[in-house]
Protein backbone atom coordinates (compact mmCIF):
# COMPACT_ATOMS: atom_id res chain seq x y z
CA UNK A 1 0.00 0.00 0.00
CA UNK A 2 2.50 2.55 1.13
CA UNK A 3 4.79 1.88 -1.79
CA UNK A 4 2.01 2.62 -4.31
CA UNK A 5 0.73 5.83 -2.67
CA UNK A 6 4.11 7.29 -1.89
CA UNK A 7 5.04 8.53 -5.37
CA UNK A 8 1.87 10.58 -5.66
CA UNK A 9 2.38 13.01 -2.76
CA UNK A 10 5.97 13.60 -3.85
CA UNK A 11 4.93 14.33 -7.41
CA UNK A 12 2.24 16.65 -6.20
CA UNK A 13 4.71 18.44 -3.99
CA UNK A 14 7.08 18.91 -6.91
CA UNK A 15 4.27 20.24 -9.07
CA UNK A 16 3.12 22.60 -6.37
CA UNK A 17 6.64 23.81 -5.92
CA UNK A 18 7.01 24.45 -9.64
CA UNK A 19 3.72 26.32 -9.76
CA UNK A 20 4.60 28.63 -6.91
CA UNK A 21 8.00 29.37 -8.45
CA UNK A 22 6.25 30.26 -11.69
CA UNK A 23 3.84 32.52 -9.83
CA UNK A 24 6.68 34.25 -8.02
CA UNK A 25 8.43 34.81 -11.33
CA UNK A 26 5.36 36.38 -12.87
CA UNK A 27 4.69 38.44 -9.78
CA UNK A 28 8.15 39.96 -9.90
CA UNK A 29 8.01 41.07 -13.52
CA UNK A 30 5.79 44.18 -13.20
CA UNK A 31 8.04 45.57 -10.47
CA UNK A 32 11.27 45.37 -12.43
CA UNK A 33 10.67 48.44 -14.66
CA UNK A 34 9.58 50.53 -11.68
CA UNK A 35 12.84 49.81 -9.92
CA UNK A 36 14.85 50.42 -13.05
CA UNK A 37 13.44 53.95 -13.17
CA UNK A 38 15.46 54.70 -10.06
CA UNK A 39 18.18 55.86 -12.40
CA UNK A 40 20.52 53.02 -13.19
CA UNK A 41 19.02 51.75 -16.40
CA UNK A 42 17.72 53.55 -19.47
CA UNK A 43 14.11 54.53 -18.60
CA UNK A 44 12.55 53.23 -21.80
CA UNK A 45 8.94 53.43 -20.61
CA UNK A 46 9.18 57.03 -19.39
CA UNK A 47 10.55 58.16 -22.75
CA UNK A 48 7.59 56.59 -24.58
CA UNK A 49 4.86 58.38 -22.62
CA UNK A 50 3.16 61.32 -24.29
CA UNK A 51 1.87 63.20 -21.29
CA UNK A 52 4.24 65.15 -19.05
CA UNK A 53 2.61 64.13 -15.76
CA UNK A 54 2.67 60.46 -16.78
CA UNK A 55 6.32 60.67 -17.77
CA UNK A 56 7.30 62.28 -14.47
CA UNK A 57 5.39 59.58 -12.62
CA UNK A 58 7.02 56.80 -14.64
CA UNK A 59 10.49 58.23 -14.11
CA UNK A 60 10.28 59.19 -10.46
CA UNK A 61 7.08 57.68 -9.10
CA UNK A 62 6.00 60.95 -7.46
CA UNK A 63 5.23 64.58 -8.22
CA UNK A 64 7.43 67.65 -8.05
CA UNK A 65 6.88 70.94 -6.28
CA UNK A 66 7.93 74.26 -7.86
CA UNK A 67 11.02 75.77 -6.28
CA UNK A 68 12.86 79.05 -6.78
CA UNK A 69 16.09 77.19 -6.03
CA UNK A 70 15.87 75.62 -9.47
CA UNK A 71 16.92 78.07 -12.15
CA UNK A 72 15.82 77.20 -15.66
CA UNK A 73 17.41 79.18 -18.43
CA UNK A 74 15.64 79.04 -21.79
CA UNK A 75 14.98 81.60 -24.53
CA UNK A 76 11.66 83.55 -24.60
CA UNK A 77 11.41 82.86 -28.31
CA UNK A 78 13.14 80.10 -30.23
CA UNK A 79 13.40 80.79 -33.95
CA UNK A 80 14.36 77.23 -34.68
CA UNK A 81 12.51 74.59 -32.67
CA UNK A 82 15.09 72.02 -33.73
CA UNK A 83 17.80 73.57 -31.59
CA UNK A 84 16.64 75.25 -28.39
CA UNK A 85 19.43 75.90 -25.88
CA UNK A 86 18.15 75.08 -22.40
CA UNK A 87 20.09 74.90 -19.19
CA UNK A 88 19.38 74.45 -15.53
CA UNK A 89 21.32 75.23 -12.37
CA UNK A 90 20.33 74.81 -8.77
CA UNK A 91 21.50 75.77 -5.30
CA UNK A 92 19.94 72.63 -3.82
CA UNK A 93 22.12 70.12 -1.98
CA UNK A 94 22.43 66.37 -2.56
CA UNK A 95 21.21 66.48 -6.15
CA UNK A 96 21.05 63.05 -7.75
CA UNK A 97 19.37 63.75 -11.07
CA UNK A 98 18.09 66.45 -13.40
CA UNK A 99 15.45 65.90 -16.09
CA UNK A 100 13.94 68.01 -18.86
CA UNK A 101 10.34 67.80 -20.06
CA UNK A 102 8.73 69.57 -23.01
CA UNK A 103 4.98 69.42 -22.41
CA UNK A 104 3.79 69.78 -26.01
CA UNK A 105 6.30 67.40 -27.63
CA UNK A 106 5.07 64.03 -28.96
CA UNK A 107 6.89 62.49 -25.98
CA UNK A 108 7.24 64.81 -23.01
CA UNK A 109 10.48 63.50 -21.49
CA UNK A 110 13.44 64.89 -23.42
CA UNK A 111 16.48 64.08 -21.36
CA UNK A 112 17.38 62.82 -17.92
CA UNK A 113 20.80 63.25 -16.33
CA UNK A 114 22.28 61.34 -13.44
CA UNK A 115 24.37 63.55 -11.17
CA UNK A 116 26.77 61.47 -9.09
CA UNK A 117 28.39 62.75 -5.90
CA UNK A 118 31.00 65.40 -6.69
CA UNK A 119 29.36 66.60 -9.89
CA UNK A 120 28.03 70.16 -9.95
CA UNK A 121 24.21 70.11 -10.22
CA UNK A 122 23.82 71.93 -13.50
CA UNK A 123 23.39 70.97 -17.15
CA UNK A 124 23.26 72.82 -20.43
CA UNK A 125 21.93 71.08 -23.51
CA UNK A 126 19.95 71.65 -26.70
CA UNK A 127 16.48 70.24 -27.20
CA UNK A 128 13.95 69.93 -29.99
CA UNK A 129 10.54 71.53 -29.55
CA UNK A 130 7.59 70.71 -31.78
CA UNK A 131 5.80 73.98 -30.98
CA UNK A 132 5.37 76.66 -28.34
CA UNK A 133 5.34 74.85 -25.03
CA UNK A 134 6.17 74.88 -21.38
CA UNK A 135 9.58 73.47 -20.60
CA UNK A 136 10.01 71.94 -17.16
CA UNK A 137 13.21 71.05 -15.40
CA UNK A 138 13.01 68.66 -12.49
CA UNK A 139 15.77 68.37 -9.94
CA UNK A 140 15.85 65.37 -7.65
CA UNK A 141 17.57 66.39 -4.41
CA UNK A 142 17.75 64.36 -1.20
CA UNK A 143 14.90 62.15 -2.41
CA UNK A 144 12.53 65.04 -3.20
CA UNK A 145 11.56 66.59 -6.51
CA UNK A 146 11.78 70.30 -7.30
CA UNK A 147 10.78 71.91 -10.55
CA UNK A 148 10.98 75.09 -12.59
CA UNK A 149 8.87 75.81 -15.66
CA UNK A 150 9.18 78.34 -18.43
CA UNK A 151 7.27 78.90 -21.63
CA UNK A 152 9.28 78.99 -24.83
CA UNK A 153 7.64 80.34 -27.97
CA UNK A 154 8.63 78.44 -31.08
CA UNK A 155 8.26 79.98 -34.51
CA UNK A 156 9.39 76.94 -36.55
CA UNK A 157 8.83 73.47 -35.06
CA UNK A 158 11.64 71.01 -34.71
CA UNK A 159 9.88 67.69 -34.99
CA UNK A 160 9.28 67.62 -38.73
CA UNK A 161 5.96 69.48 -38.85
Amino acid sequence: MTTTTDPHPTRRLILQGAASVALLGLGNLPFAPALAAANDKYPDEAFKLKNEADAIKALYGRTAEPSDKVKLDAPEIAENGGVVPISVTTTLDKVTSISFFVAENPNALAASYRIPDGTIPGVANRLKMAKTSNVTAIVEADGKLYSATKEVKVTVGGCGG
Partner: protein
Amino acid sequence: MASSIRVRATSNGDITEVQTLIQHPMDTGLVKDAKGELIPAHYIQELKFECNGKDVFVANWGTAVSKDPYVKFSFKGAKKGDDLKISWTDNKGGSDTTTAKIA
Protein backbone atom coordinates in the same frame (compact mmCIF):
# COMPACT_ATOMS: atom_id res chain seq x y z
CA MET B 1 36.86 57.23 -39.08
CA ALA B 2 37.28 60.26 -36.99
CA SER B 3 35.58 60.05 -33.63
CA SER B 4 31.98 61.26 -33.45
CA ILE B 5 32.76 62.84 -30.09
CA ARG B 6 34.40 66.21 -29.65
CA VAL B 7 35.13 67.14 -26.10
CA ARG B 8 36.79 69.96 -24.25
CA ALA B 9 37.54 69.44 -20.58
CA THR B 10 39.20 72.32 -18.78
CA SER B 11 40.32 72.33 -15.20
CA ASN B 12 39.83 75.45 -13.11
CA GLY B 13 41.03 74.82 -9.59
CA ASP B 14 39.04 71.90 -8.21
CA ILE B 15 36.31 72.16 -10.83
CA THR B 16 36.52 70.61 -14.28
CA GLU B 17 34.19 71.97 -16.93
CA VAL B 18 33.26 69.58 -19.71
CA GLN B 19 31.74 70.57 -23.03
CA THR B 20 30.84 67.86 -25.49
CA LEU B 21 29.58 67.85 -29.04
CA ILE B 22 28.61 64.57 -30.67
CA GLN B 23 27.86 63.96 -34.32
CA HIS B 24 24.66 61.99 -34.51
CA PRO B 25 21.48 62.33 -36.61
CA MET B 26 19.14 61.97 -33.57
CA ASP B 27 16.24 60.99 -35.88
CA THR B 28 12.90 61.10 -34.07
CA GLY B 29 11.09 58.55 -36.21
CA LEU B 30 8.46 61.20 -37.03
CA VAL B 31 10.14 62.90 -39.98
CA LYS B 32 9.59 61.84 -43.60
CA ASP B 33 12.31 61.80 -46.22
CA ALA B 34 12.05 63.21 -49.78
CA LYS B 35 10.10 60.12 -50.93
CA GLY B 36 7.55 60.54 -48.15
CA GLU B 37 8.81 57.55 -46.19
CA LEU B 38 9.33 57.81 -42.47
CA ILE B 39 12.95 57.95 -41.39
CA PRO B 40 13.19 55.39 -38.58
CA ALA B 41 14.11 56.63 -35.12
CA HIS B 42 17.85 56.68 -34.57
CA TYR B 43 19.05 58.43 -31.45
CA ILE B 44 21.59 58.22 -28.64
CA GLN B 45 20.09 56.69 -25.51
CA GLU B 46 22.95 56.77 -23.08
CA LEU B 47 25.99 58.98 -22.80
CA LYS B 48 28.45 58.36 -20.01
CA PHE B 49 31.45 60.25 -18.65
CA GLU B 50 33.98 58.45 -16.48
CA CYS B 51 36.96 59.90 -14.67
CA ASN B 52 39.39 57.98 -12.46
CA GLY B 53 37.20 54.87 -12.58
CA LYS B 54 34.04 56.66 -11.44
CA ASP B 55 30.97 57.82 -13.36
CA VAL B 56 30.86 61.59 -13.17
CA PHE B 57 27.87 62.21 -15.43
CA VAL B 58 25.32 59.99 -17.14
CA ALA B 59 22.79 61.23 -19.68
CA ASN B 60 19.68 59.33 -20.73
CA TRP B 61 18.35 60.85 -23.91
CA GLY B 62 15.14 60.59 -25.88
CA THR B 63 14.45 61.73 -29.41
CA ALA B 64 13.86 65.33 -28.30
CA VAL B 65 17.57 66.03 -27.94
CA SER B 66 18.78 68.08 -30.90
CA LYS B 67 20.73 66.66 -33.82
CA ASP B 68 24.49 66.67 -33.18
CA PRO B 69 23.86 66.96 -29.43
CA TYR B 70 25.70 69.33 -27.16
CA VAL B 71 25.98 69.02 -23.42
CA LYS B 72 27.88 70.90 -20.75
CA PHE B 73 28.45 70.09 -17.09
CA SER B 74 31.11 70.45 -14.38
CA PHE B 75 32.47 68.14 -11.74
CA LYS B 76 34.91 68.15 -8.85
CA GLY B 77 37.76 65.87 -7.91
CA ALA B 78 39.83 65.73 -11.10
CA LYS B 79 43.03 67.53 -11.99
CA LYS B 80 44.91 68.58 -15.10
CA GLY B 81 46.18 65.61 -17.09
CA ASP B 82 43.54 63.15 -15.81
CA ASP B 83 41.75 61.05 -18.40
CA LEU B 84 38.07 61.57 -19.06
CA LYS B 85 36.40 58.67 -20.87
CA ILE B 86 33.27 59.41 -22.88
CA SER B 87 31.05 56.75 -24.42
CA TRP B 88 27.59 56.64 -26.00
CA THR B 89 25.21 53.98 -27.24
CA ASP B 90 22.21 54.51 -29.52
CA ASN B 91 18.91 52.70 -30.00
CA LYS B 92 20.27 50.73 -32.98
CA GLY B 93 23.18 49.32 -30.99
CA GLY B 94 25.70 51.81 -32.37
CA SER B 95 28.33 53.19 -30.04
CA ASP B 96 31.49 55.24 -29.82
CA THR B 97 34.11 55.91 -27.19
CA THR B 98 36.85 58.43 -26.79
CA THR B 99 39.23 59.57 -24.10
CA ALA B 100 40.16 63.18 -23.49
CA LYS B 101 42.87 64.66 -21.31
CA ILE B 102 41.71 67.32 -18.91
CA ALA B 103 43.52 70.53 -19.81
